[in-house]
C-alpha cells in the first residue's frame, strides 16, 4: 500500500494518478454519507470515511486492520486535517484525532508515504 497525505488542494489525487497510472474510474472517492470500497485500486478522501466512523462510533483503525487483505496493494489518500488548530466542536475534535491515528497506522503498513505540498511531493517513507 502506498499512502499519500497532504492539505486540501495540494495535488494529492493528481499525483496519485500520475505516479500510479490510475484512471479516474479506478479511484473510489469516500463521501461523508457513503460507503467505502476497499477493493478499488485507489481510495481517496479517507478523511470523509473517518468522519462517518466518528458519527457511527466505529474505530477506523480497527476497521482497516480487520480488512488488511483488501487494501494492502492499494493507493490510499487522506487529507492531513490533524495539523490545524484543535477545533471547538467535540465531533470535529474526535474526527481530527481519529484521522491522525488512522494515518499513523497506515503509515506503519505502507511501503511508501508521500506528503504533497503546493503540488510538490515529499517522500516521508
Amino acid at each position, binding site marked *: 500500500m502506498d499512502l499519500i497525505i497532504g*492539505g486540501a*488542494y*495540494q495535488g494529492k489525487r493528481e499525483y496519485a494518478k500520475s505516479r500510479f497510472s490510475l484512471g479516474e474510474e479506478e479511484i473510489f472517492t469516500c463521501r461523508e454519507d457513503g460507503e467505502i470500497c476497499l477493493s478499488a485500486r485507489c481510495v481517496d478522501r479517507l478523511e470523509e470515511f473517518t468522519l462517518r466512523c466518528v458519527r457511527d462510533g466505529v474505530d477506523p483503525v480497527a476497521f482497516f486492520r480487520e480488512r488488511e487483505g483488501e487494501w494492502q496493494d492499494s493507493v490510499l489518500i487522506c487529507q492531513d486535517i*490533524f495539523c*490545524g488548530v484543535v*477545533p471547538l466542536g467535540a465531533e470535529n*475534535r474526535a474526527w481530527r484525532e481519529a484521522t491522525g491515528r488512522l494515518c499513523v497506522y497506515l503509515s506503519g503498513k505502507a511501503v511508501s508515504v508521500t506528503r504533497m505540498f*503546493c503540488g510538490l511531493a515529499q517522500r516521508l517513507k
Partner: protein
Amino acid sequence: MNLFISGGAKNGKSSLAQRAAIKLSAGGPKIYVATMIPCDDEDRARIARHVADRAGLGFTTLELGRGVERCLELADPASTFLVDSVTALLLNEMYPENHTGDADPGAARRLTDGLLTVARRAGNAVFVSDAIYSDAIRYDSFTEHYRADLASVDRALAAACDTVLELCAGNLIVHKGVWEP
C-alpha cells in the same frame, strides 16, 4: 533566482524571507512589497511591527495591495523583490477598491498572472504565502473558495520558482531546489 516560502502562522516565514532577500540581492537594491491594506488599529499595529523588524535592513518599501506586477515599473526590475504575502494579495484582489458585494471570481487568475510576471522579470524574487490547508473544520463556502484559490496561486508559484521552502515550527523543509542559509 526565485524562492517560494510557505508554512504555518508565526513559524518564521517573514524573517527567513528577509534573510533570503538580503542574501540573494548580493548588495544590490532590495524592494519590500508591502501587501496589507490596513482596515483597523490591529492591522496598523501589525504593520508597525513589520516596519520595525525591517528597520536597518536596507529595504525600500513599496505599498502594493493590488496589482503586484506594478512593482516592476515602480522600481528597477533587476532588484530583489520580497512579496509578503500572497495570502493578503489574494484577499485584496478579491475585493477591488470601493467594491461591494461578492468576491471577484477572476481574482486568483489575475493574481497568478501578476506574480508569475514578477517571478519571470525580477532580478530575484521571494514570495511568502500561508499553508491554510490542514484543518478539521468544514468551512463556509466563502472560506473554502478562498482556500482553493490560494492553493491554485501557491501551486503555480511553487511550479515556477527555483526553490520552494516550508517552515514547520521554525524548521526548514526544502521541497524543491537547494537552499543554503
